[in-house]
């Protein structure tokens, strides 16, 4: 464990892209966790303040068209949006790792079926199914949103993990363990899975990023959780009430900046990990 931490530390010191991404994401997560503790959530209720006032001393980022304090609403929306991304990312990663390992290890008909299924799912446009499901659900919640998005984003992780499993299981040390009489399960969990960790980590970042992109897109279309505060829903309400045309930049500007920072952080982390993963490949 200490070795692993030391390795991660050394990698961060060397890999500045990864470091920038991790620091940026760290700040965002810290704000999302601590922010809601420092504010009065009642200011984010509809009609809590005088609507449509520009930023001033009392309302740092002004108030929106329905009388919410924008600053308070954003601090409450951030953890919700990150939560959707995390849940969806975790679900799609778990499904991806499980299916990828099974496909890579068993081969034959199981592999063919899993690969065909993920190929087909990749071809059906995600947004189509998302729109159909979301427009038919009675009451959309943050959790349900995460599950729906996850159902449509496990394919990339499955492919990556399957390809890596195929190459790992033919390695010398796996062969030797197999000759020593290790069971298939032990091979998977002791020999293969630990070596997949870098790929799992980078798949996770990509999965979270894709899930959040899909979520915010759906929310902006008006298919998100109508009664909850998320960054995407803030964009939707701003768009719905014509905030841009009415010149209320403080309503839609700050959520755009926050969303952009999240995606830039995720991209930096992903790009940094890419260099790390590929370097391992080269040195092998």
């Amino acid at each position, binding site marked *: 464990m200490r070795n692993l931490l030391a390795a991660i530390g050394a990698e961060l010191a060397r890999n500045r892209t990864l470091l920038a991404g991790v620091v940026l994401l760290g700040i965002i997560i810290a704000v999302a966790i601590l922010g809601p503790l420092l504010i009065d959530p009642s200011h984010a209720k509809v009609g809590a303040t005088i609507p449509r006032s520009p930023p001033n001393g009392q309302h740092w980022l002004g108030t929106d068209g329905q009388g919410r304090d924008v600053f308070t609403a954003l601090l409450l929306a951030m953890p919700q949006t990150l939560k959707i991304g995390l849940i969806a990312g975790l679900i799609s990663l778990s499904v991806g790792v499980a299916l990828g390992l099974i496909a890579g290890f068993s081969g034959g008909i199981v592999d063919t079926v899993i690969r065909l299924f993920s190929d087909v799912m990749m071809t059906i*446009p995600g947004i189509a199914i998302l729109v159909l499901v979301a427009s038919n659900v009675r009451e959309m919640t943050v959790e349900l949103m995460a599950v729906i998005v996850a159902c449509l984003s496990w394919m990339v992780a499955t492919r990556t993990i399957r390809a890596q499993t195929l190459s790992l299981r033919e390695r010398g040390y796996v062969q030797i363990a197999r000759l020593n009489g290790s069971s298939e399960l032990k091979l998977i969990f002791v020999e293969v899975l630990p070596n997949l960790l870098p790929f799992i980590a980078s798949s996770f970042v990509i999965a979270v990023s894709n899930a959040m992109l899909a979520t*915010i897109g759906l929310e902006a*279309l*008006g298919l998100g959780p109508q009664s909850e505060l998320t960054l995407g829903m803030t964009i939707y309400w701003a*768009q719905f009430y014509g905030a841009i045309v009415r010149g209320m930049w403080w309503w839609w500007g700050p959520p755009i900046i926050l969303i952009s920072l999240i995606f830039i952080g995720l991209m930096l982390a992903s790009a940094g990990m890419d260099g790390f993963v590929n370097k391992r490949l080269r040195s092998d």
Partner: protein
Amino acid sequence: MYLGYVAKRFAIMLLVIFLAVSINFALPRMMPGDPIQAELSQVMASGSGSGDITAMVKSYQARFGLDQPVWHQYLAYWQQVFSLDLGYSLVNYPEKVNSAILNGLPWTLSLLGFATLISFSVGTILGGLIGWPRTPRFVANLGSGVVLLSSVPYFLIGMVLLYVFAIVLKWFPAGGGMPFGLNAGFNFETIRGVLWHGTLPALSIILAEIGAWAIGMRGMLVSVLGEDYISLAEAKGNRPGRILTRYGMRNALLPQMTRLALALGHIVSGAVLVEVIFSYPGIGFRLYQAIQTKDYFVLQGIILLLSVSIAIAMFVLDLIYPLIDPRITARGR
């Protein structure tokens, strides 16, 4: 070899279309509640209708065949799909779903086609410059900035552009596909109006996409520049610019081309939200309106179009792949 490959890809395409149609059929029926009942109650509540609601529900159910057994409805749905009759819009009755789609399609295709080609060209050249070690520092830095911009969702870029250029500066119109009240015709006025209205939507897609093309090109170029024939070209005394364009970028271009084909396949579903932000009269804006007004048949029709068009585009792409890159059939994918 090639025939077997084509047959397999064709089977996958049929499977995808089959699944898409089935999902499109099944999902609304699996959900609780009766859309017709809900729709009619809403019409009643808004005061724009009159009459006996139960009788109307009955007659609508008969009209849409909803009083039949499910497998019967399923077959009827297929028949509908095959005869390209997607029914009527619930909200804009008697507009047909087909004509709603056909009205939007040219707008979406031209906006996305134009934006994709521009961002492909600019992004590819930019990626080539970033990946080339002799590129001046500030150009490379500028390139990295554009790449960062590409991680921001395109419709958010669209919102900022809309505010700056249409609301504050008033250089461009804030929405629509052409000037209000203009009679469309093939003349200078129309073309100018369409271009003027299309600039901001196109620009937001282009700004968001350039980075993705640049990253792909940079990656390929870096690996190509490590090849032996680049060293040979240098040893022969070629000028650096010639090495970059003739030897480097030319060879790095092939994967970019296949990705371009893929992007053109996704053209119909490409930029739903940009159309929403700019009220651009394409398929995406129509989809948004259908969601807002719960216009069921238009919603299903557009989604069916998206699924089928992508399935067909992927199939065509699979057909072209082996012709561009013979290794694919050789590996017997």
